[in-house]
């Protein structure tokens, strides 16, 4: 009922392409996250969908209708801004019903909707407060309420949680996701925080320098990164990337002796997630602890392997003095091989799982 389709959308600022030929589909009722580092064009992309920026090339369709040249109010989308963009001189109530008043909705209907929405976002007690008298989380709720009261079914969110403290952010994450599912809204959500993307999205669109780097479910992005950039961006800390070299009995980490798997390693990079590495009693790959960082539930060990450095996540508190020699183990299926020069995932037959164990 409220599907957004982008076809080869490009936005130029002078010579710079902020958004470069982006195509994707946000299916009705899905939560789509545009993820990427700051300055990658994800906010511009959202503003293009909203109609706040002009599309240089390409098409934007909402429910099959071409809205590329329509003004923002004709697109039937709502938007939550990073700064919330509340009207500072209006009360919570006036802020929420602003759009309904603009459209000249009768007061009775307005009041009915307001009561319902205020209930949904938990603002019923605060309707006569001004934005300055509200906490950050409450302002966030007002912005949400203003977005959902129009019953547009499409809601665009531009880093809505980045101004909240960590604890509140977690609560709001759960709440926004719950709200989206209850109301069946199509949400396009911009963030640079991969935790938000992983925990909220049905579909993640990873963007880098104005182009789509990878698109898929959070599970796909985590389990099968298409590029080294995607590998590093997802996860805290991101995937380890170790340059490989040819060894006598198979591929080795540069500067290390222990063969990882059969075949050549030169020109490739090995990816392995910190949480998929464990300390082995024997076998595996030799390394040396460089430092350990205690996080409470787990410990992040920094280990030198050959010329490369690797993080590993171990549950609980793991005390290892710097300089302690260790052996690292992992399953072949948690190893990924990338082409170092292009950064892309290497062909399937070059993946460790398919190559088999190292000779001897």
């Amino acid at each position, binding site marked *: 009922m409220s599907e957004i389709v982008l076809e080869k959308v490009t936005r130029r600022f002078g010579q710079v392409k902020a958004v470069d030929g982006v195509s994707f589909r946000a299916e009705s009722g899905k939560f789509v996250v545009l993820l990427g580092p700051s300055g990658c064009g994800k906010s511009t992309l959202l503003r293009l969908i*909203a*109609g*706040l920026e002009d599309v240089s090339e390409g098409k934007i369709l909402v429910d099959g209708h071409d809205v590329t040249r329509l*003004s*923002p*109010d004709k697109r039937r*989308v*709502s*938007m939550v*801004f*990073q*700064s919330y*963009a*509340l*009207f*500072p*001189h209006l009360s919570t109530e006036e802020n929420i019903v*602003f*759009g309904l008043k*603009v*459209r000249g909705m009768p007061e009775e209907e307005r009041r009915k909707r307001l009561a319902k929405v205020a209930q949904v976002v938990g603002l019923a007690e605060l309707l006569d407060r*001004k934005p*300055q008298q509200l906490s950050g989380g409450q302002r966030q709720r007002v912005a949400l309420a*203003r977005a959902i009261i*129009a019953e547009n079914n499409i809601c665009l969110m531009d880093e809505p949680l980045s101004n909240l403290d960590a604890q509140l952010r977690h609560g709001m994450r759960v709440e926004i996701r719950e709200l989206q599912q209850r109301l069946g809204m199509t949400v396009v959500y911009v963030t640079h925080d991969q935790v938000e993307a992983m925990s909220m999205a049905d579909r993640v669109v990873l963007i880098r320098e104005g182009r789509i780097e990878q698109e898929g479910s959070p599970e796909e992005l985590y389990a099968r990164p298409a590029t080294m950039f995607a590998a590093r961006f997802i996860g805290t800390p991101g995937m380890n990337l170790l340059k490989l070299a040819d060894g006598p009995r198979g591929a080795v980490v540069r500067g290390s002796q222990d063969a990882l798997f059969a075949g050549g390693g030169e020109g490739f990079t090995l990816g392995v997630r910190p949480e998929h590495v464990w300390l082995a009693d024997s076998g595996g790959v030799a390394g040396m602890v460089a430092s350990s960082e205690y996080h409470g539930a787990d410990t992040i060990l920094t280990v030198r392997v050959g010329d490369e450095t690797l993080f590993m996540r171990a549950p609980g508190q793991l005390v290892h003095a710097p300089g302690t020699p260790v052996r690292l183990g992992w399953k072949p299926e948690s190893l990924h091989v990338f082409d170092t020069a292009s950064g892309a995932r290497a062909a399937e037959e070059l993946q460790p799982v398919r190559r088999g164990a190292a000779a001897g």
Partner: protein
Amino acid sequence: MKNVYGWLLLTPAAILLIGFTHYPAVATLYDSFFSTGTVVRPSRFVGLANYAALADDPIFWQVLRNNLYFAAATIPTSIAIAMLMAIWVNDRLPARALVRMSYFTPTILPMVAVANLWLFFYTPQIGLIDKFGAMFGAASHNWLGDPSTVLACLAVMTVWKEAGFFMIFYLAALQSLPPEIEEAAKIEGASRWYFFRRVTFPLLMPTTLFVLVNATINSFKLVDHLFILTKGGPDNASNLLLYYIYQVAFSFFETSYASTLTVVLLAMLAAMAIVQFLLIEKRVHYR
């Protein structure tokens, strides 16, 4: 003993303030209760006689009416034009800096220079307005010599001079408004006019009141142009309060009566300032 240093720091400013502001104000009030002294008749206490004379002075009432008319004509107009210009030059438009600068130019000119400029506009027959009118067959008109047009002519000139100055304050206020607010309103479908009426204008309210206070004071304070253009004439048709005080004090040498007029002017300005600040307290603190 340890306060001496602080007092020493305050002294230069205090001397200037007392010498040029506080003492003259008190002395003016004091003088307004005495007659003007001459060589043969020394000044003596007359109580409220000067104020009684003021109430009976038809010129005073005419000048006061002129001044109120002048204020009513210049204040709302210059504020409205300033706001419009600020919104216009705050937009993305070509050569924005140039447009802003040209709107601000009248402000940096001294009032005397402006008056001379406009004197050339208003001069009958050879003035700009009459020359322009003549092209369409209009008869020559003595704009500044006609009691029915002279005050309006002064008001137009003052608006031209003031609006650019007030525009700067509005421009600063507009630039402090977050741009997302306008985008949020755009997504909600608010037209430019609706957005201005419901958002921009209320958010500019603190600036408007600040400008209003300044405009009010200026409308009583600015009389430089009268020296060049009309000297208050014809027949006091363009005379304003402060210029009248100047005439009474330094042309007619009625210093006591001039003091009385000054006290009345100060009282009026103080009352207006108080009313305006009370309004600010009530209406403007939306935060």
